[in-house]
């Protein structure tokens, strides 16, 4: 027996006109297969309509926020990692380029070394003369400056450093909050 279009009508819940409806009932009276199909379809529909809606566990949104924060953190770490890799690569390229340059100027090596040594010697001389000049000044100066001044200087210097550290750490915390919140 041909069950079309009745199967389609049943399964896709087609809207029927009067003529089709009459034809449909006519077929159902004679065809037990389509009758069973129609019944099964109705029962499934009823089951689906009456099966209770599933609910997520309470706190779904806060769990979602935590997950988002993790994802964003991961993204940030990835960006940092990329930046560091790029910097490292750039540094390595520069290094390679420099060493190639140096190798290509190998003939000037003795000259370069001589210049470097003479420069170093000049700096050493300068430092020695500076030390010779400053050490008596420092020795006398320390005696001349009152101890309370020195203490006040050290105290204010440490104060400035502490303020700097606190400000920096606060800034980085609020930055993190902006990114993750």
């Amino acid at each position: 027996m041909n069950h079309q279009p009745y199967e389609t009508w049943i399964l896709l819940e087609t809207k029927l006109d009067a003529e089709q409806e009459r034809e449909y009932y006519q077929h159902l009276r004679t065809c037990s297969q389509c009758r069973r199909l129609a019944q099964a379809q109705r029962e499934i529909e009823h089951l689906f309509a009456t099966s209770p809606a599933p609910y997520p566990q309470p706190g779904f949104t806060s769990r979602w926020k935590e997950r988002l924060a993790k994802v964003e953190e991961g993204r940030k770490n990835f960006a940092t990692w990329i930046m560091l890799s790029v910097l490292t690569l750039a540094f390595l390229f520069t290094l390679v380029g420099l060493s190639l340059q140096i190798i290509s100027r190998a003939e000037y090596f003795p000259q370069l070394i001589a210049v470097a040594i003479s420069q170093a010697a000049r700096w050493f001389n300068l430092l020695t003369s500076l030390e010779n000049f400053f050490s008596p000044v420092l020795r006398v100066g320390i005696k001349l400056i009152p101890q309370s001044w020195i203490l006040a200087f050290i105290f204010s210097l440490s104060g400035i450093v502490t303020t700097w550290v606190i400000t920096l750490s606060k800034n980085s915390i609020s930055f993190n909050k902006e990114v993750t919140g």
Partner: protein
Amino acid sequence: MHKDEKQWARQAQEGNADAFSNLVVAYQKQVFSVCYRMLGTPTAAEDAAQEAFIRAYKAIDSYDVERSFATWVLSIASNYCIDQIRKRKVTLLSMDNEKYGWLAPPAQDPTPERSLVEKEKQAQVHALLETLSETDRAAIVLQYWHDFSYQEIAEALSLTVSAVKSRLFRARKTMAEEWQKEPLVPQVTHIPSERIAHESPTL
């Protein structure tokens, strides 16, 4: 779509995560429901629903606020579930200990008998959905429980309308055959056959 929700979507597009979390509050139940029917366990559904909202948040710029947010986010969720089923071969029976694990709505306090009937129904729903391929299952879930039109299902699953119709036809036929094989019907869902024979399929 609610006026507030449009506003939240616009704010989310400007990078406001708090505005987006209002949308999570509003649509968590629907998204969880799609994932639960697709994957069959509360744990898998929770994970998929969370991930669907993360994907929606990342793709919020591509969302057209003039269209339904539900349709948009549910299609993200169903596609994610389809991928999960394909990738990990998540089957409805994979986690036996929490199979059909039922989470009751917090407002209701079902009696043990009612809870048993509901669990039984849930098991029957899953047994039927399990007989379908992932795409057919998504089409059925979106149509039955979320009132998606053929057009909306086609857009959500990247199919043509005629492909959707033939998939739904095939899926419903498979389920009806399965239903007839095993008389899983509890008393509550029984409908006399004479009544059916005298009703038009549109009723």
